């Protein structure tokens, strides 16, 4: 088994608003290994992006704060790190691709300039080595004619190309961990497939660990080695991808998988989960999914279920699982 790159232990992140404390991430634990892609799946507002921002330590101050837990990257806990030390991690050790990569490029700088910014910031390279490094990262993202691409401005590029340039920035310092926050959402299906293949290729070449945040189980199936299913600030089930599709243990997981449209099942109405996720300001006392769960019992509504290990790196928090 390869080395664990990032280990998140019992992470709590809250936003302090006028209405009270919003526990956006409430005790999340998971890990990612080298050359592994870990997917975080869940509905909008379940805390996926907040988890990512917590790892980057980029929550909007003063509203959002990590209130507990550890984020261990190769032996160092990132939570107590000073701002300056944390800055050295960002871009160098951990990179992130934002939700809308189309607009993540600064319109006033050329592509070469923007990739170069990261390289100059984190690597003490002599000036004549910067350009080869930029070209190399463009090559890694399979951008044709990287030499001419250097001088282009973002507005001269197509959406797909911009996406790759953002990827090249993220990979420019060969980070150990790459967080991708729904990078495929804004792409059409063909480009999406290409992009996923590209990431697999990059991972093979660089052994980077990837945390892939998405709400699309279809993408998870194609791309991730292991998955964590998030609901209302908690990870309710973690398992290798193959296993989660074969034998989902949590009712929410199976409901999510059932809501994915499939070509091999015709003439059926698409499954949907009744109700809405609970307000994070006013959580139900027991299992968070209980109000929407079709198989909930009295215990579910009164007590939070413990996390149970059901073998082979498969954990689940549900009273029905023994």
């Amino acid at each position, binding site marked *: 088994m390869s080395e664990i790159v990032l280990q998140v232990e019992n992470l709590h992140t809250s936003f302090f608003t006028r209405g009270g404390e919003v526990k956006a991430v409430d005790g999340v634990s998971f890990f990612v290994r080298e050359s592994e892609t870990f997917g975080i799946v869940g509905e909008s507002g379940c805390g996926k992006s907040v988890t990512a921002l917590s790892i980057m330590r980029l929550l909007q101050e003063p509203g959002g704060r990590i209130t507990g837990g550890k984020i261990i990257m190769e032996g160092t806990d990132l939570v107590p790190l000073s701002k300056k030390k944390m*800055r050295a991690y960002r871009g160098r050790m951990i990179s992130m691709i934002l939700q809308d990569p189309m607009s993540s490029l600064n*319109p006033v*700088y050329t592509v070469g300039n923007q990739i170069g*910014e*990261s390289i100059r910031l984190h690597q003490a390279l002599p000036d004549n080595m910067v350009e080869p490094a930029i070209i190399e990262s463009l090559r890694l993202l399979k951008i044709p004619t990287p030499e001419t691409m250097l001088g282009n401005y973002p507005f001269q590029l197509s959406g797909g190309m911009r996406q790759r340039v953002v990827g090249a920035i993220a990979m420019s310092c060969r980070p150990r961990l790459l967080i991708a926050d729904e990078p495929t959402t804004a792409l059409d299906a063909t480009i999406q497939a290409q992009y996923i293949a590209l990431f697999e290729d990059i991972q093979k070449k660089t052994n980077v660990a990837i945390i892939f945040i998405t709400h699309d189980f279809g993408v998870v199936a194609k791309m991730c080695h292991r998955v964590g299913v998030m609901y209302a600030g908690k990870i309710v089930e973690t398992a290798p991808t193959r296993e989660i599709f074969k034998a989902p243990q949590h009712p929410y997981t199976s409901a999510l998988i059932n809501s994915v449209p499939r070509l091999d099942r015709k003439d059926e109405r698409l499954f949907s989960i009744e109700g809405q996720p609970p307000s994070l300001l006013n959580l139900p006392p027991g299992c968070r999914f209980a109000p929407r769960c079709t198989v909930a019992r009295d215990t579910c509504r009164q007590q939070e279920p413990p996390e149970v290990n059901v073998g082979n790196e498969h954990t689940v928090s549900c009273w029905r699982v023994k």
Partner: protein
Amino acid sequence: MTTLGEVRAKPAKRISGLSRGARIVRSLTFFVPMVIMLGLVFITLFAPLIAPYDPIEQHMLERRLPPSFFEGGTTKYILGTDHLGRDILSRMIYGGRVSLSVSLLAIMITAGIGTVMGIASGYIGGRTDGFLMRLTDIAMSFPGLLIAMLLSVGVGPGFWTVVFALSILGWAGYSRMIRGEALRLRNSDFVMQARVNGVSNIGIMFKHIFPNVVNTLIIIMTLQIGMMILAESALSYLGIGIPAPTPSWGSMVSDGRNDLDRAWWISTFPGIAIGLVVLSGNFLGDWIRDKTDPRLRRL
């Protein structure tokens, strides 16, 4: 009720409706001010070479001579002479030098202060923003010319006093506008991306916010040229600008005040110069604004 057809027809009509004449007039509003401004810059740069006389040289025997194209005028003094027999054309050429250098310096100072404050205010936000914006409010609520007058009187007249007096409140307009831009840019994806890449806050303000507000900055600066020249002239007219005998358009207008009935040209020509340059500055500013960022038309 407007029908769909009418709504559709409107924009098409506007594009084709712009006649040849209208288009020429439109391009003139750029061309003429540009020529005037460039002319002013050229004249001020080469004043000693162009001016026929020393601007403070007095010809006591040839006082209040009318311009050459009027009865009694001589070609010796194209725009006539003032009450001390000084050549008005030469004085205007040198006076333009003063007006332009004072206003350009004041614009650079105010733009510098305003940009730093605006970016800091918009990007940092919170208490910094509150403090800097209240400061801006205060600066905006003071009558600028009055403060400038108080200062000139208090510190004593001089080139730098005028520059300082014009700069002391002028930054407020910049900081307010730039703050708005910075506020918008702070939440943009590329700033977030820069943060993700580990760029420091200072680095983000310099490298990512500033280049994106330069457009706005240039527009305000151009629009300010006219205002600054006017303010400088006003101070000089009131006798608290650049001290005599250094010529300045404002003080020249003031010099001719007593002779308006017999020697109208002493005040009129510098007055026309002020008017033309201010108008050119405003037209040029409008033109640049419309070309680069039509959203700012409400400015």
